[in-house]
């Protein structure tokens, strides 16, 4: 009997040798005359266990990890094809505590299915949302998204349904759906995992958005740093077209939707929606002033829905199970779940999908198991390179958009980067300014000039040149950037800087913050 073995094809698995493991399993099975079918699934997101090899047994899928090539002969000797005992045997995958404690709605198929198989996708509730959408009037689809409470998962947290509604109401010769897959924030990888591990979910979400708003064309703007994601997406789109879920006359409904993948070129600011549109149109990715809103004048001047990967990927389930099902998860105005990404100096880094409302402390210790170095955790940057450093006194706040905003922090895209007590917060603040200087589009002065001056001022503070005056100057500069920048690039760079100086003043050589937390 042929045994099915799963070896992930996610970048994080490839980066620790998953291809070699897969080749070794194939070679070993051949040599021992044991029939094996290897499925290259996505990653479960338990990255410290990669390469996580799973074997289909009558009891369920049994996990082994982290497996390296040299382990493979021993695994065969231990009858791993029968779920045999071995030092790397982790038991049934679904029973691994890190996974079992999660609430995987959007990521339910992640690591379970073959990412590019339409049949596998459909066998796991795939395309149920699109089928339901095809039976609804566009306004009813939009109402479902509104009722679900889904807000943009890219960081700004704007209600997705309102954008859709605006585009639906707009009169134009052509509307567009644009997926912002320019996930450039350090500590984030949920978009990459989606595109590599369950790309059909994004395809389905975009097709639903198209049907809901009357858009017949969609673009996915993907980072050039993600070659595997681009390849997997293109493969999935081809398969979806062939199966009739994309293209002209979707499933005989008379509706059309075409998807095009566009490769970005390494400019961080293109994650800002108007800069992204400029780039898609073939220009330098320079921020546009708003208004006009992209929902009215977006790509090529036409009404455009721009949503992040996870936002669009959340839509199929909302349509399949209904707005009430989704809305039931979460707290306050933060509805549903967020795939939190635990990264940096953390023992068990990976993807944790939970409803809004859990705390950072739970993520850091119950899931993450503390720092990777074993040293005390000092600072945690939440929400990407433009997010605040959150000190221990705030680790018990519920993770929801409003609660974080109230303390000058952001949930953003759910990226969580952990630093231990060896981190020098003045250097991380300097780095935030330096990053802004490198990546600024240059259109507005606060961001372009402010970031360069920011680096200089922080250098003066740390080398104790007129320190008290320079601290005041840095705060003034941050105030100008916060309120005077055209977009979030300059407007949020002060978050990591001010949070570092407010919560860790000793790292700057000053005794106590001279103002309340920013």
């Amino acid at each position: 009997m042929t045994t099915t073995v799963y070896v992930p094809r996610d970048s994080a698995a490839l980066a620790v040798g998953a291809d070699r493991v897969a080749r070794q399993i194939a070679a070993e099975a051949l040599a021992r005359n044991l029939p094996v079918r290897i499925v290259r699934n996505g990653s479960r997101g338990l990255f410290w266990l990669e390469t996580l090899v799973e074997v289909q047994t009558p009891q369920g899928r049994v996990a082994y990890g982290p497996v390296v090539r040299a382990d493979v002969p021993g695994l065969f000797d231990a009858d791993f094809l029968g779920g045999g005992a071995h030092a790397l045997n982790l038991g049934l995958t679904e029973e691994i505590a890190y996974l079992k404690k999660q609430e995987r709605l959007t990521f339910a198929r992640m690591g379970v299915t073959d990412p590019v198989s339409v049949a596998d996708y459909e066998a796991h509730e795939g395309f149920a949302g699109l089928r339901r959408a095809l039976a609804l009037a566009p306004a009813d689809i939009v109402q479902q998204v509104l009722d679900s409470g889904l807000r943009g998962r890219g960081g700004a947290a704007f209600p997705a349904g309102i954008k859709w509604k605006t585009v639906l109401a707009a009169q134009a010769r052509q509307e567009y759906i644009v997926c912002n897959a320019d996930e450039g924030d350090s500590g984030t990888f949920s978009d990459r995992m989606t595109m590599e591990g369950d790309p059909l979910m994004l395809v389905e979400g975009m097709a639903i958005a198209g049907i809901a708003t009357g858009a017949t064309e969609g673009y996915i703007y993907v980072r050039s740093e993600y070659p595997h994601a681009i390849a997997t997406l293109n493969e999935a789109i081809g398969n979806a077209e062939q199966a009739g879920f994309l293209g002209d006359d979707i499933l005989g409904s008379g509706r059309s939707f075409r998807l095009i993948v566009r490769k970005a070129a390494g400019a961080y600011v293109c994650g800002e929606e108007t800069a992204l549109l400029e780039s898609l149109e073939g220009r330098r990715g320079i921020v546009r002033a708003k208004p006009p809103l992209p929902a009215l004048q977006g790509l090529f001047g036409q009404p455009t829905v721009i949503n992040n990967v996870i936002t669009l990927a959340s839509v199929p389930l909302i349509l399949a199970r209904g707005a009430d099902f989704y809305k039931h998860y979460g707290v306050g105005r933060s509805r549903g779940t967020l795939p939190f990404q635990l990264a940096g100096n953390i023992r068990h880094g990976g993807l944790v999908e939970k409803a809004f409302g859990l705390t950072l402390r739970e993520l850091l210790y119950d899931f993450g198991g503390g720092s990777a170095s074993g040293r005390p955790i000092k600072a945690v940057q939440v929400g990407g390179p433009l997010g605040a450093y959150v000190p221990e006194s705030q680790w018990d706040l519920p993770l929801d958009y409003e609660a974080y905003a109230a303390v000058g922090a952001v949930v953003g895209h759910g990226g969580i980067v952990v630093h231990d007590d060896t981190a020098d917060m003045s250097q991380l603040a300097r780095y935030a300014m330096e990053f802004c200087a490198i990546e600024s589009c240059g259109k507005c002065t606060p961001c372009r000039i402010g970031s360069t001056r920011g680096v200089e001022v922080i250098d003066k503070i740390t080398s104790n040149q007129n320190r008290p005056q320079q601290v005041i100057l840095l705060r003034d500069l941050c105030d100008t950037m916060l309120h005077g920048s055209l977009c979030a690039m300059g407007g949020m760079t002060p978050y990591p800087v001010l949070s570092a100086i407010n919560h860790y003043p000793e790292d700057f050589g000053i005794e106590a913050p001279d103002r309340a937390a920013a």
Partner: protein
Amino acid sequence: MTETTDTAGPGIAASIAAAHKDVPGGLLPALHGIQDAQGYVPPDAVPLVAEQFNLSRAEVHGVVSYYHHFRSAPAGRLLVQVCRAEACKAMGADALLQHAEQRLGCGVHGTSADGQYSLEPVFCLGLCASSPSIAINDEVHARITPALFDEIVEEARQAS
């Protein structure tokens, strides 16, 4: 400096540009095509692209130079990218970058004298839970120590 490789270059660049000129927003795909084919966007391709797209040379140059991904000069045989973003920094990326400079014999944004290696910083490869990470000619590697870095670079050099 690149006369020999460029004799075929302008023809390739012009035909790639021509193939993309009617694609909406086709300039970036055209530049990607040229860089994928030639390893960089040669300065003498710029006027040819400009002509196809009915743009000024300055506009095309502006796009090429704006994006970190596009190169105006050839890279070494192995393009080594070391992630400098926060998650990797938290796990020693700064020290790794210093090690890379020594091992490859070139500074950041530089190419080694023998043309073997180019070293570029990169801001996030999406491997933040397995940091620090690097990429060599688009192939990603995670949990990198200096010793592992040397091993991977040597393996890639022999394979290339």
